[in-house]
C-alpha cells in the first residue's frame, strides 16, 4: 500500500548556512524530480525549496528506502556528506505528513506566521512536479486539498491580518489617520531600507507626490528619480512641511531634524490638516514633542516595533484556529485515503450493481404479472450471475499486486467511474 511521506528540514531544525547549501533552484528541482522518478522506491514526488525550508513530499511503498534515496541524492547533488544534514532532517508519514503539508501551506509553520508567500511557492513546486509528471493521484489530491485548506485558514482566521513589518505597520497606521492615501503628499528625509520600503508601500497605495530631502542633494535626486518624485534641498524642509502630509525620516543626524517649533508655526497655515511623522532613525530625527501638537502624530521606531509585536501575538492567537481547520482537513483526507483501499471499493461496487439490478427487476416484474415465484427466483439468479461475471475481471485487476505500478490510479478511476463517493 502506498503511503504519503514527507522528509525535509526547515528554519526550526537547520541553521541558515545549512539551508543555503541545500536550497534548490527551479532547474535543480526538475533534475531532482527526474532522479526520484527513476528510483523504484518512490512512486510520486514533489520538492519544495524556499529560503526557510527544503522538503520532499512523496508517495512510496517503502519509506526507509525512499528516505535513503533522497538523502543520498542530496548528498551527491550538493556535495555534502549525509552526516552534515542528517540530524536536521525530519520524516513524517501518513497523517503526520498530510498535516505538515497543510500547516506549511497555511503558513502556520512559517518563521513569520501568516506570511502569504509560502502558498505561492508551494503552487510553483507543484507546477514543476506536474510538468515533470512526478505527481500522481495521491499528490494531486493532497495538493488540491492543501490549497483549499490554506485558503480556508486565510479567510476564516485573522492569521494574515495586521502588519508584522515596521514599514507596513507605519502604512497601516497612516490608514487609520487618513483613510486613503490618494493625493496625500509624502516627504522622505534621508534614506534607508525601511524608510524606502515604507515609501514604496505608500506608492502602491496610491499616495500622491513624493518629495525627497537629502543632505547630499545628488543622492536625493537619485532616490527621487526611483520614486518618480522630486528632490528638495535639506534647508527647504520647513517650507515644505506646509504642503506634505506624511513625513518619513531616516537620517544619521544626531539632533532633531524637525523640531516642535518648526511644526507649531505651520499648523495654522495647513488649516489643521493632519500631519503624520514616521521616525525610523536612531537617534531620533523628529522631536517627540510634536505628537502633543494638535492634529500631528509622531511614531518612532520603538512605537512601531511595539505595534508589530502586538500584531504578532494576535497572529499567534489566530493560528490556533488555523490548527483546528487543519485537523479537520487531515481527518477528511484520511477518509478519502482509506477509501482507496481495494476491498471497500470492490464491496461498494458490487452493492451499487445489486441495488440497480434489484430496482430494475422490481420494475419489470410489475408488468409481468403471469410469472410464477419460481420464475422470479430464476430471473434473480440470472442477474446475480451477470453482475458476478461483469465484475470478475475488474475485481481481479484491482486485487492483483504488481501487475501495474500504481494501484491507487485504478482505484481512484473506479470510484470516479461509478460515482462511489456520493
Amino acid at each position, binding site marked *: 500500500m502506498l503511503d504519503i511521506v514527507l522528509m525535509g528540514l526547515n528554519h526550526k531544525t537547520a541553521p541558515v548556512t545549512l539551508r543555503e547549501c541545500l536550497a534548490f533552484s527551479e532547474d535543480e528541482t526538475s533534475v531532482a524530480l527526474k532522479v526520484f522518478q527513476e528510483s523504484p522506491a518512490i512512486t510520486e514526488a514533489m520538492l519544495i525549496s524556499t529560503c526557510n525550508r527544503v522538503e520532499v513530499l512523496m508517495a512510496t511503498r517503502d519509506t526507509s528506502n525512499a528516505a535513503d534515496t533522497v538523502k543520498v541524492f542530496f548528498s551527491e547533488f550538493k556535495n555534502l556528506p549525509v552526516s552534515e544534514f542528517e540530524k536536521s532532517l525530519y520524516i513524517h508519514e501518513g497523517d503526520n505528513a498530510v498535516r505538515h503539508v497543510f500547516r506549511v501551506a497555511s503558513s502556520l509553520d512559517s518563521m513569520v506566521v501568516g506570511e502569504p508567500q509560502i502558498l505561492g511557492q508551494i503552487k510553483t513546486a507543484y507546477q514543476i512536479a506536474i510538468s515533470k509528471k512526478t505527481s500522481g493521484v495521491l499528490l494531486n489530491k493532497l495538493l488540491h486539498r492543501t490549497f483549499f485548506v490554506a485558503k480556508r485558514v486565510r479567510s476564516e482566521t485573522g492569521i494574515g491580518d495586521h502588519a508584522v513589518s515596521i514599514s507596513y505597520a507605519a502604512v497601516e497606521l497612516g490608514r487609520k489617520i487618513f*483613510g486613503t492615501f490618494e493625493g496625500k503628499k509624502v516627504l522622505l528625509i534621508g534614506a534607508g531600507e525601511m524608510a524606502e520600503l515604507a515609501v514604496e508601500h505608500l506608492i502602491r497605495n496610491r499616495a500622491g507626490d513624493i518629495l525627497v530631502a537629502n543632505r547630499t542633494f545628488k543622492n536625493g535626486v537619485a532616490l527621487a528619480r526611483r520614486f518618480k518624485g522630486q528632490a528638495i534641498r535639506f534647508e527647504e524642509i520647513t517650507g515644505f512641511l506646509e504642503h506634505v502630509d506624511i513625513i518619513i525620516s531616516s537620517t544619521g543626524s544626531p539632533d532633531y531634524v524637525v523640531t516642535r517649533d518648526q511644526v507649531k508655526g505651520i499648523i495654522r497655515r495647513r*488649516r*489643521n490638516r493632519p500631519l503624520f511623522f514616521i521616525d525610523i532613525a536612531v537617534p531620533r530625527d523628529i522631536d517627540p514633542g510634536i505628537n502633543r501638537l*494638535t*492634529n500631528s*502624530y509622531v511614531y518612532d521606531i520603538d512605537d512601531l516595533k511595539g505595534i508589530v509585536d502586538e500584531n504578532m501575538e494576535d497572529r499567534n492567537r489566530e493560528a490556533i484556529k488555523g490548527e483546528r481547520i487543519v485537523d479537520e482537513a487531515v481527518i477528511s483526507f484520511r477518509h478519502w485515503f482509506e477509501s482507496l483501499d481495494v476491498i471497500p471499493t470492490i464491496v461498494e461496487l458490487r452493492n451499487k450493481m445489486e441495488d440497480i439490478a434489484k430496482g430494475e427487476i422490481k420494475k419489470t416484474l410489475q408488468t409481468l404479472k403471469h410469472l410464477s415465484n419460481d420464475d422470479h427466483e430464476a430471473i434473480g439468479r440470472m442477474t446475480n450471475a451477470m453482475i458476478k461475471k461483469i465484475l470478475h475481471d475488474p475485481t481481479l485487476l484491482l486485487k492483483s499486486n504488481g501487475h501495474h505500478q500504481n494501484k491507487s490510479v485504478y482505484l481512484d478511476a473506479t470510484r470516479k467511474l461509478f460515482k462511489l463517493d456520493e
Partner: protein
Amino acid sequence: MEIFIFIVIIFYLLSTIGYFAYLFLQKDVFQQTGFYLLVAGFCCHTAAIGFRFIQSGHFPVNNLHEVLSIVGWTIAGVFLVFQYRFQLKVLGVYAAPLVSIVMVIAAKFPNAPHQMNNILNNLWLVVHVVAVFIGEASFALACGVGLLYLLQEHAIKSKKHGFFFRRLPSLELLDTTGYACILTGFAMLTFGLIAGFVYAKAVWGRFWSWDPKEIWSGITWLLYAALLHQRLTVGWRGRRAAIMAIIGFAIILFTFLGVNFLLQGHHGEFTKL
C-alpha cells in the same frame, strides 16, 4: 397604540444588541442585522406616528410622550440616512441605544390625549417641529461621531492600540462624517427656526417673544454657526471640532429638557406630562 410602541421598542433594542455584537465580534452580519432591525423599527414607528396623526387630526406633539417619540423617530431616520451615505458602520453602537433609551423614556410617560389645541393645526408648526428635530438629531449624531473621533485620536496619540483602535474607522472618515452631520443639522435648524418665526408671527403676531427656549435655541444656533465659520475660514477640524460638537449637543439637551422643566415659556405647553 401601546402595543405599537412596544413593538417599535423591541425592534430598536434588538438592533442595539445587533450593533453591540458587531462591536465585540466584528462580524459584518451582525451590523447588517442591526441595520435592518433599525429599518424595521423605523417603519413601524413611522406607521405609529402616522396613525396617531390621522386619529387625532393634528401633529402628535401634544405631550412629552409624543414629543420624545418624535425625537426618537428623527434620530433613527437621520442615522439611517447617514449610515447609508457614509458607511460609518460602528456609529450604530451609539445611535441604536440612544434611540432605544429615548423610546423607553417616552413609553414611561402617560400618553393621555391632551386637550385639543387649535394652534397645533398649522403647516408651519409641523415644518418647524420636524425641521428642528431633524437638525437636533443630526447634532446628536455629530456628538456621537465626535466621541468616536476623540476615542480614536486618543488611541493614536497615546500609542495604545486597544479595543477601539481596530474597531473604529480612520480619523478622516470620522471628521468628514461629523462635519456633514453638523452641516445638515445647521441647515435644518436654520430652516426650522425660520418656520417657527413665521408661525409665531401668524399666531402671536410677533416673530420673537424672548421665550427662554427661543433664547437658548438662538444660542445653539450661534454656537454651531461659529463652529462652521471657523472650519471654513481657519480649518477648525479634528479634535477641536469634535469637542465643539459634543459641547453643542450638551447645550441642545439643556435647551430641550432644562428649559422645559426649569424655566417657563410657551414651549412648555408641548411637553406637559
